[in-house]
């Protein structure tokens, strides 16, 4: 090879080199990548659409705590398991006295409620500063977000009693504030709600079917502010706000207690503010899953079935009055029932026509089989559940009642709760629970019936009430009664009782109200039976200071229908009525002081 050739090749190589460098030079934006599935903080809130999406993001905080792997113990209805009306299947850390300040219950509740605060703070500030939406819409959205922020602080204050307050977007290293007093947090709540109420662009109420339905209304703000006043024992202010709720057009649903909780009536005038659910994965409820039983919908394992993670407590069942307003008494159905040892009572719940093998099994268990009526046992026990407050059978699946469950042979079947439950196939159709070696009162309320109501346990369609008018009426009654306005208060209670089809107060000797104290107790009981499973009862007991007395008395525990204890309740100390500041939060922010006892 000669020199020329060499130079030629060298030239060629250099051309390639130059071309190569050219290729790499031309892609200037190589390094400027951007996410494909999200919006950066630089552009968020800067269009009308992004404003809508951002506000919906605040609402979505209401759904935190919903999980598809098991009950989180943080959804509202699940919190009843801490109180009077309901029982967590295996007990929970607050009833078995095993909770401590590191328990996930406290940290997760804190975190999720403050997430709501953070999103609301972000929205309130940025809608005002950056959104190009119309002034009316912006004003309405800010009012809605203030309501939501108030709701989250309300929930925090209910259990932690005085928490740090952040009302502006805060950087992660800025969470160093001390706790405010409980009273100060109520003030914050009332201020936000008052702002919402004073906002002209916030409607009083949305009509059924309005496209905005599910957004906050002024009625909701009045209801929540009234409740906040109740916590502060500002009875007159509370009553005035509850009256405004009525003025806004909210009223009791008249189609019956049971129908109220069905999809058709989820936008009835009784519903003031509810968590919106639709039957789409990620958008629905889980009540049918964690309250439902094995016969709840589904035609096989893949469709899933209910886990009955929560039971109704026998104390609640016993609290439902007879239809005539007299107190229910077991001894009137089965003489001597209330004085016999609880484990012996099981004999009364046995199904008719037990096999000899079953007879001997139960005899071996120590039951007095002489009390068993082979052909009349079911009829006898059913008497205990008939002629009662209609809300009993709308709330509870009681022994020997039926439940319209999943389809077999192509048709939904009526399953009967029998003891023992032997066979859930046609034609026997015993109702199976997920704990069928023991017999518990199971939820009927919030449990979907038949296969037409639900397509999947992960996502039920029915909105979950956060505030409804019956709750408002009973709080109103409470506010009136505490002011000594007994007569007015009785009227509010009677509105609720009338809808339930139960004798009115002051209509008979048994229902005669004897003064403020008597009415106070009657209002409390009315709330316990009316609002069972709605995530209200536990907080009521905390507010009234009645938790220990009502929930941790003798014989308390996770009780089978006859009272047998499967998991005993243990009172850890009075301090458990105020939740601890989560341990890690105390560690990361030394300015926070722990509640006493923890």
């Amino acid at each position, binding site marked *: 090879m000669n020199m020329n050739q*060499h130079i030629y*090749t*060298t030239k060629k*190589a250099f051309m*390639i080199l130059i071309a*190569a460098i050219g*290729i*790499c030079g031309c892609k200037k934006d*190589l*390094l400027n*990548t*951007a*996410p*494909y*599935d*999200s919006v*950066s*903080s630089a552009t968020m809130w800067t269009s009308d659409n992004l404003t809508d*999406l*951002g*506000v*919906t993001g*605040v*609402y*979505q905080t209401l*759904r*935190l705590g919903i999980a598809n792997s098991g009950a989180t113990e943080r959804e509202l209805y699940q919190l009843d398991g801490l109180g009077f009306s309901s029982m967590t299947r*295996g007990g929970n*850390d607050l009833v078995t*006295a*095993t*909770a*401590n300040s590191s328990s996930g219950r406290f*940290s997760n509740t804190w975190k*999720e409620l*403050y997430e709501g605060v*953070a*999103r609301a703070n*972000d929205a309130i500030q940025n809608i005002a500063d950056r959104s190009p939406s119309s002034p009316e819409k912006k004003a309405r959205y800010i009012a809605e977000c203030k309501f939501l922020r108030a709701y989250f602080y309300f929930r925090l204050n209910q259990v932690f009693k005085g928490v740090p307050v952040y009302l502006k977007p805060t950087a*992660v290293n800025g969470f160093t504030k001390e706790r405010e007093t409980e009273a100060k947090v109520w003030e914050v709540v009332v201020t936000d709600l008052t702002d919402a109420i004073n906002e002209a662009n916030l409607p009083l109420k949305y009509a059924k*079917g309005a*496209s905005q339905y*599910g957004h906050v209304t002024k009625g909701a703000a009045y209801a929540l502010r009234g409740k906040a006043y109740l916590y502060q024992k500002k009875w007159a202010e509370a009553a005035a706000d509850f009256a405004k709720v009525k003025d806004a057009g909210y009223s009791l649903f008249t189609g019956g207690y049971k129908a109220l909780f069905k999809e058709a009536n989820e936008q009835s005038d009784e519903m003031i503010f509810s968590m*919106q659910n*639709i039957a789409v994965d*990620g958008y629905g409820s889980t009540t049918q899953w964690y309250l439902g039983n094995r016969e709840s919908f589904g*035609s*096989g*394992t893949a469709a899933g079935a209910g886990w009955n993670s929560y039971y109704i407590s026998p104390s609640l069942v016993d609290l439902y009055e007879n239809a005539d307003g007299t107190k229910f008494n077991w001894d009137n159905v089965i003489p001597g029932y209330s004085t016999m040892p609880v484990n012996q009572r099981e004999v009364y719940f046995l199904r008719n026509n037990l096999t000899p093998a079953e007879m001997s099994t139960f005899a*071996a268990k120590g039951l007095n089989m002489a009390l068993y009526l082979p052909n009349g046992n079911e009829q006898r026990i059913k008497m205990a559940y008939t002629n009662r407050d209609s809300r009993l059978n709308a709330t509870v699946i009681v022994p020997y009642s039926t439940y319209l469950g999943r389809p077999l042979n192509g048709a939904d079947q009526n399953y009967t709760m029998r003891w023992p439950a032997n066979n859930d196939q046609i034609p026997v159709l015993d109702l*199976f629970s997920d*704990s069928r070696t023991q017999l518990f009162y199971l939820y009927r309320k919030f449990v979907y019936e038949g296969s037409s109501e639900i397509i999947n346990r992960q996502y039920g*369609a029915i909105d979950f009430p956060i505030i409804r008018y019956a709750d408002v009426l009973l709080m109103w009654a409470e506010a009136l009664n505490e002011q000594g306005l007994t007569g007015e208060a009785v009227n509010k209670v009677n509105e609720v009782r009338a809808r339930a089809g139960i004798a009115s107060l002051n209509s008979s000797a048994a229902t005669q109200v004897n003064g403020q104290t008597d009415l106070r107790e009657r209002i409390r009981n009315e709330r316990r039976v009316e609002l069972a499973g709605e995530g209200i009862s536990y907080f009521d007991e905390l507010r009234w200071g009645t938790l220990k007395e009502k929930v941790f008395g003798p014989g308390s525990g996770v009780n089978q229908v006859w009272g047998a204890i*499967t*998991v*005993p309740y243990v009172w850890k100390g009075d301090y458990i009525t105020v939740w601890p500041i*989560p341990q*890690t939060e105390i*560690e990361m*922010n030394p300015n926070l002081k722990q509640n006493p006892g923890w």
Partner: protein
Amino acid sequence: MIICTAIFLLPGIVSAQNKLITGKIKDKDGPLPGAGITEKGMETNATLTDASGNFKIKLKGNSQILVVRNIGYQTQEIDVSGKTEISITLNTDSKGLDEVVVVGYGTQKKVNLTGSVASISGKELSARPITNVSSALAGLAPGVSVRQGSGKPGSDGATIRIRGTGTLNSNNPLVVIDGIIGTMDAVNPEDIENISVLKDAAAGAIYGSLSGNGVILITTKKGAVGKNSVTYSGVLSFARPSNLPDFVSDYARFMQLTNESARNMGVSEVYSAATIQKWQEADKNPDGISASGVPNYVAYPNTNWADWMFGKNQVVQNHNVSLNGGTEKITYNISAGYLGNKGIMDNTGLSKYQFRANIESKINKFITLGTQTFISTQSIGKANTDNAFNYLWQTTPGIYPIYEGKYGFAPAVEEPVTNNNILTYLNGTGGRNKETRINSTLYGIFNIYKGLTFETKVNYQDRYQELSSFALPIERWDFSTNTLKTPLLAGSDLTTSFEFNKNYTLTFDNVLRYITKIGDHDISAMVGYNQFYYDYYNLTGSKKGLIDYNITTPGSATDISNAVGGTEYDRSMRSWFGRANYAYKSKYLLEGVLRYDASSKFAPENRYGFYPSFSAGWRISEEDFMKGMSDHIQNLKLRASWGKVGNNVMSADDNKGNYDYMATYQKVNYSYNNASNSGLAVLKIGNNLLQWETTTLANIGLDATIFKGKMNLGIDLYNKITDDILTIPPIPLTAGTASAPTQNTASMSNKGVEIALGWKDKIGQVEYSVTGNFAYNYNRVTKYKGVLSEGYTTDANGNSIYSSNIGLVSSSTDAIPDGRILEGHTVSEYYLLNPYKGNGSYKNADGSVNKNGGPKDGMIRTPADLDWVKSMIAAGYKFGPVGTVGKGQLYYGDLIYADENGDGTYGNNADKKFTGTSTTPKYTFGLSLAAAWKGFDFSMLWAGSTGLQYLFNQSGINSTRTNLGNAIGTRIANDHYYYNDANPNDPANNINAGLPRLKWGSSDSQTNIPSTFWLYNASYLKLKNVQIGYSFSKQLAGKIGLSRLRVFLTGENLLMITKYPGLDPEVGINLSYPTMKQFAAGLTATF
């Protein structure tokens, strides 16, 4: 750029002479194919011997000297003046002085290395029944810790750590295959020529920001000039799990234990006496026919799930064919491989096909073009092994797995209806899981001028995965009554789903090299540019309502509500780099490296990183004063290096954190008025100050070859400091549920020593070698969020208050929730409660309770122990975390904890202490032994780690919690505390047991909580591989037309020595697919 300019000023000399030399190269066994012959001084004039060891070369320069090289042999220089035909016998290399080592963007003679590089030859990997490269590296190189976390086909790749845990996120080393970033286990082990592990900055800095965790370079085999050779190698192996989890399989006993746990808690018993009796009766006559017509062992089962899941021996077969050869113009190595691994569990098998073509063509003297192209495709069974392992401890022995094709359902009425038959998780899903990789590099090498070459490469890699799944209908039966419990699902309830995901990378790489020698000065220099783009996206969908089980395409499903999903992310990098080497008489060695990187993962103002490194070597053995020693010391070199490298990976998962510097709002779900309505919310908080993590590495090394090459020694001391570590430290709960921002928070140091020592010799006709390596790594977090201060202060009221800032200055990670990151401690050091230790005296002399007089080992064993607890509480002391005495709270057989801070509460958060240990081994070591005698060869490889601990308290296996439908570990069943307080003389009482009492219910916050009670030493030593082979002599092999034939027997993972009570310390803490013990036979034949 100054270097480049200098390169062109250097003169070249071109002259020619044309003398043809022919010859034959042999070793002691016969002709040596593939040996390299180079004309000295004319490095581009080279050839290789053909299959018969013959070569031809035309001399072009005037040195009259040929250099003959072959890896593993001593290089010889032959003076051919006056000769045209030569015959040379090469001696195997006992010195290793001419060993060439692959380094980043080039090769270097090992003696000239100034960096710390471990080199592993492909031969050390071949002929082992391994299914992937990564797991085969165990024990082969010092400072390279290899942990195989699973034996699942397709997921059996190992985790590799070079010089300890350097960062809090991904510690995976960079893998570079033939110069291009890639995936280690995508390479067929049989295609590998060599693996180099770059450990220090001097070696790694050329990869700059990517090399913070070390670099592994893989070079695949190239074609050799000469006659074609075809090599077949095949291995057939039998695989069994090396260990199995051990659960109680006697169901009656299981039920009694469960009832015991319920009694312990004061809650109702779970299983009725009638049910237990049924099993006890049936157990008396297991083969008897039950009322339902099936044998008792089916109707009333006592299932050992581990045996059913893993009980099968499976055959793994591995076949590879390669075609190697070429002419002076074109060389090629083309290979095809098949791996069939049926897996020890149903429906987990893998089959993999791999093809590679490495072809290089010398277009002319100046241009060489070539390609490395690789295609593989693998299919894996659809068994849901994640579920199977997740449910393995969430099932009971009371379910018969499968009988006459029918799957079993728990016959006991007490079992939840959701009882888990593990086999249904393995066999319940059909569909496809197929992954295909296409990886092609096209390269051109241009010899621009004497010593000056330009190399350009374009690489495109495409990996895509096709997934589909649909439920295979399974019925479940209660065999005790012969009733169908779970009928087949109707087609309308079945769902079919699919996913397609794909990622591709485009790399463009250009390097200009110059090499020259001026007198005694060897100079080389290199500059380069690289750009890289990676993109991933997927598309998922599912649809319900199959018209028939067998009709499973989404298009044929009936439900109109579809779920379609998909995501996408990308990242890119741009880099400039350069290196200069200088050597004087191969005695004094100097090297400098610079690299400048820009990454898309950081905000534009923070995205550039600069990485320099410098190293030097001194070959003491070349000094005059050592000449007298040359009989004893063949090589003695001192190396030192310092440099900076980086890391831009923000998570343990390399694919996460691509946009972490931006705060982003992502989609969340809500509805209004029954219409779905998306929202946006911040789910990850951004941090636009993010920048590179920087690792500064200093290394001093000594290499020695002594006793006539019989002994090789390498010692490295290193100090590796990583600053600005990218982590995601926890944020206050008050900040909400959004993921915490990624931050540059911590600094960490890893100091260590690595020693490799080898001995090679001959006793009579037996050649043998022993090679050991050992590494010690000392890890400390040097900077995090501040110094821990804890202790007592006096408040305004004069009360002594204990305070600690542990939450401020320290945090845990998701991976090790009970380990913490804190300055002055090893990373993720366990931070745990300690069980109380008392002296058992209970009372002081004055009758008051003695706080040091409680139970000796922290377990409440006797009434006196419990009384002491009560007296303590009465005296104002507290016990945590539960605190109340009672069956369901704190009782007999529970642990109590030491009051480490002396605040009077035994077992609150302030009583946690650092243990000084973590899950990361402090010492790793390997030992390989090899011997050869005539045709026989033998080798053995041991690998192990010590100085690591695992907190092992998993429900169902090593926890005394019991729960409905959960298993009970045999270890727990055999040695747990029991005390019937109603009957102190109950023969079942076992108050001296090693483990605490059984506790019913999933939550026990007293005993089964993180404490040193559940902390175990997880050190292990494993016999990784044993191999015996026989190579037939050339003559014998020749008779059947082969040039080489070797047969071998080998065993993998044959022995594990450990005290860890779990499955396998190498697999990790909890249950998962075990590693495999394999026995294999194979052969390698070359035609």
